[in-house]
């Protein structure tokens, strides 16, 4: 048998953990069609039954107010999964059943996973799964997703439910006399005209009309305007009546009765508590410290600093291994490929370009691992709460914090999902300010640029510099947000509410899956997009090649130098490695010949398309300390930020006398006379702030609904970046820093 199983549940109910436990590595991430909500799918088998598992977005409810809820609802209607597994947190049953009850009202075939039954027990809560199952009329299986306990029973229950194949009758809850009367009357009319009943149960449609559900109202108005408007009239009447008699409105009454229904159910022997519901737990005590007004922010900064220390310290060796591997690959290609353009493409374009980006995979992996720990333990939610206070000052919202962090607030995210994460912001103004400033965060693609420059110039204090870079990015983003909020996107602040999940010790399996997912995306991008751009940029840096007459001129110089020297010394040089055995005269000759080669390579690069563009920009960028090679790299970085590293790799490799001599790019930069710690700082600042990559700009355009904002972010960000970088460079030079 084959079947589709949807996983649903509240945020923090352990849904992702259960999904990982069920599917292991057999999962992939995509998007729901037409919207940018992440869709995770996987498969597993149980007793020879093949199950396709879809992870629905975590939601509290099934209203049309948030995109996640609409996505979850639409999936159930359009894809008709054979069974829905609703993961409910057994230690938090009352609030988690609120969603379960709505599934039942929709008439969805349901199996309950009573998750975190161990946590519930620790908290003195005993749940009688059998009793709950009897009362709700659906299977309820106790599980512990973290250890995988109860997983097989859960799948068995799901398979059984599929085999039953009976569409359950929708659950009917009483919503009090006034609403029940209206519901019954509306339901009758809906049934009589088969109004949307091919998709939804009749009573459910009536209920949604009462709740003023935007999506259902719109569907209804399109399908049958007459009936829709008469139903709306009924809703109007009831709403007026409720306002007059009970000083309330339908939605409040509906929520109240749903909770009432759940409360009554739980009291029938489902749940037994040892303690009062609002008793304090270890998690609350921890929060006293971690979210303390003064201690909290200090701990937060220490945690981030610790993460950087961890990342740079432990990734050093594996990064050296990967660099060594690409060095070896380069030597291999140099030895076996015939001279010519193809060799140049492989060595300078692919190996020095893409290899430079790939070299940072271990570093990225360690960073993602650390971030996964912060995320899975529940600490990031506290960070959002603590920063909400700061964000208010700058005209942003607590939910902006998450968008910032996803974009790379701790270093190593991506602005694309970050920009999409701004959808959780309801105020369009706060949302716009957030999505325009989120790209200032240090995404995983900027990280190699920083790591490269840090390794070359600030090797003695890697974590400290990374920390400083993070602070600069945040300060810049917040100030820019304040500027935007007090000029182009003025408007009031919206209130903030968020559930804080209890602290949990992350599972190793979960951490590995999350780390690998993100690392794999980085590798995949380097092997596809970055590879393509590296090849294009290599071509731009190679063609047109020097004219014959200029090449001949360099050749003449070489011959002249050789002619000046005694013939005996001319025979000797050739293999650069053996310079120990050379006489002083031969050494001098070799140096002079190399100088000519170097001049020719550089002239060739300057003469190429990219070289000309880079040189043309030099008059402007010289103020910030960037030479033409850096200009090429930064232009390439507009396609994707990793390209800055790969292009510098290619540029310095092409400009090199002997690209087969593969010393790491960071050493090449450190030894180059055009570079200094001050130039490095200037480039770091520019990289933090300048135009977001192309994909992010497209995303900004889509999310803000206008090309204007895409263009704005490109020009505004680049202008800010240029002014800051030039400022740093000029002041630094003035102060005599080098």
């Amino acid at each position, binding site marked *: 048998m084959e079947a589709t199983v949807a996983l649903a549940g509240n945020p923090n109910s352990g849904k992702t953990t259960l999904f990982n436990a069920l599917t292991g590595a057999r999962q992939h991430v995509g998007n729901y069609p037409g919207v940018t909500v992440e869709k995770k799918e996987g498969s597993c088998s149980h007793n020879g039954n093949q199950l396709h598992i879809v992870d629905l977005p975590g939601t509290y409810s099934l209203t049309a107010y948030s995109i996640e809820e609409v996505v979850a609802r639409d999936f159930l209607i359009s894809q008709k999964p054979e069974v829905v597994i609703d993961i409910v947190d057994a230690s938090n049953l009352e609030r988690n059943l609120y969603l379960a009850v709505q599934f039942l009202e929709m008439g969805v075939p349901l199996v309950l996973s009573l998750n975190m039954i161990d946590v519930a027990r620790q908290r003195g809560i005993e749940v009688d799964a059998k009793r709950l199952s009897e009362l709700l009329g659906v299977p309820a299986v106790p599980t512990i997703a973290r250890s995988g306990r109860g997983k097989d029973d859960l799948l068995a229950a799901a398979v059984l439910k599929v085999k039953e194949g009976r569409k359950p009758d929708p659950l009917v809850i009483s919503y009090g006399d006034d609403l029940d009367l209206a519901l019954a009357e509306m339901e009758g009319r809906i049934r009589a005209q088969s109004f949307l009943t091919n998709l939804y149960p009749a009573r459910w449609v009536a209920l949604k009309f009462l709740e003023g559900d935007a999506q259902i109202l719109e569907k209804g108005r399109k399908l049958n305007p007459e009936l829709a408007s008469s139903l709306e009239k009924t809703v109007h009447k009831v709403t007026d009546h409720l306002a007059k008699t009970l000083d309330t409105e339908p939605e409040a009454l509906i929520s109240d009765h749903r909770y009432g229904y759940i409360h009554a159910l739980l009291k029938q022997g489902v749940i037994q508590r040892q303690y009062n519901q609002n008793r304090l737990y270890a998690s609350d005590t921890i*929060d006293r410290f971690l979210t303390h007004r003064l201690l909290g922010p200090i701990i937060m900064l220490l945690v981030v600093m610790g993460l950087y220390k961890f990342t740079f310290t432990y990734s050093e060796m594996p990064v050296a291994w990967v660099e060594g591997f690409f060095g070896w690959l380069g030597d291999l290609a140099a030895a076996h490929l015939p001279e010519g353009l193809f060799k140049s493409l492989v060595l300078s374009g692919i190996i020095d370009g893409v290899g430079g980006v790939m070299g940072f995979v271990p570093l990225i992996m360690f960073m993602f691992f650390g971030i996964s720990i912060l995320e899975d333990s529940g600490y990031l939610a506290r960070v959002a709460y603590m920063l909400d206070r700061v964000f208010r000052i700058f005209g942003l919202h607590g939910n902006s914090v998450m968008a910032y962090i996803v974009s790379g607030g701790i270093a190593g995210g991506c602005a694309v999902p970050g920009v999409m994460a701004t959808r959780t912001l309801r105020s369009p103004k706060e949302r716009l300010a957030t999505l325009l400033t989120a790209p200032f965060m240090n995404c995983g693609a900027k990280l190699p640029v920083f790591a490269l420059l840090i390794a070359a110039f600030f090797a003695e204090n890697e974590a400290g510099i990374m920390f400083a870079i993070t602070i600069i990015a945040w300060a810049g983003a917040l100030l820019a947000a304040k500027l935007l909020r007090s000029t182009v996107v003025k408007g009031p602040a919206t209130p903030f*509410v968020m*559930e804080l999940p209890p602290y949990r010790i992350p599972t190793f399996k979960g951490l590995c899956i999350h780390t690998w997912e993100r690392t794999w995306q980085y590798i995949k991008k380097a092997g596809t997009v970055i590879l393509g751009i590296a090849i294009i940029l290599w071509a731009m840096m190679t063609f047109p090649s020097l004219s014959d007459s200029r090449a001949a001129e360099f050749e003449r110089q070489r011959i002249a130098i050789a002619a000046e020297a005694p013939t005996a010394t001319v025979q000797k040089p050739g293999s650069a490695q053996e310079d120990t055995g050379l006489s002083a005269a031969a050494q001098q000759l070799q140096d002079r010949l190399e100088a000519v080669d170097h001049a020719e390579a550089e002239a060739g690069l300057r003469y190429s398309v990219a070289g000309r563009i880079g040189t043309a920009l030099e008059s402007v960028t010289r103020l910030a300390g960037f030479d033409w090679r850096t200009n090429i790299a930064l232009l390439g970085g507009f396609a994707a930020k990793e390209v800055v590293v790969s292009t510098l790799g290619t540029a310095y490799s092409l400009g090199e006398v002997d690209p087969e001599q593969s010393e790491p790019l960071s050493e090449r930069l450190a030894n180059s006379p055009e570079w200094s710690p001050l130039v490095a700082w200037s480039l770091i600042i520019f990289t933090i702030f300048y135009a977001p990559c192309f994909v992010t700009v497209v995303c900004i355009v889509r999310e803000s609904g206008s090309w204007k904002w895409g263009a704005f972010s490109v020009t505004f960000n680049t202008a800010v970046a240029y002014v800051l970088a030039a400022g740093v460079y000029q002041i630094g030079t003035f102060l005599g820093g080098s």
Partner: protein
Amino acid sequence: MTLSKVESGNEVTLKSINGGRHLKAKLYSMGLVPGTRLYILSRENRGRVLVRARDGNFALGYGMAEKINVE
């Protein structure tokens, strides 16, 4: 009295929410409906609060706490 005024360590009952449809629907779905008992875990500054309700912990900004009437 609004939630923002309640000192930490007190337990109060949610009475009503001043806000638009959307805000209310969101709070309701999280379990913050009229009649819910709220225990104030901490209160800072002007009235940012951490509350415990129905087995969950919630962080509410000052603006939000101002919109919630309790007794």
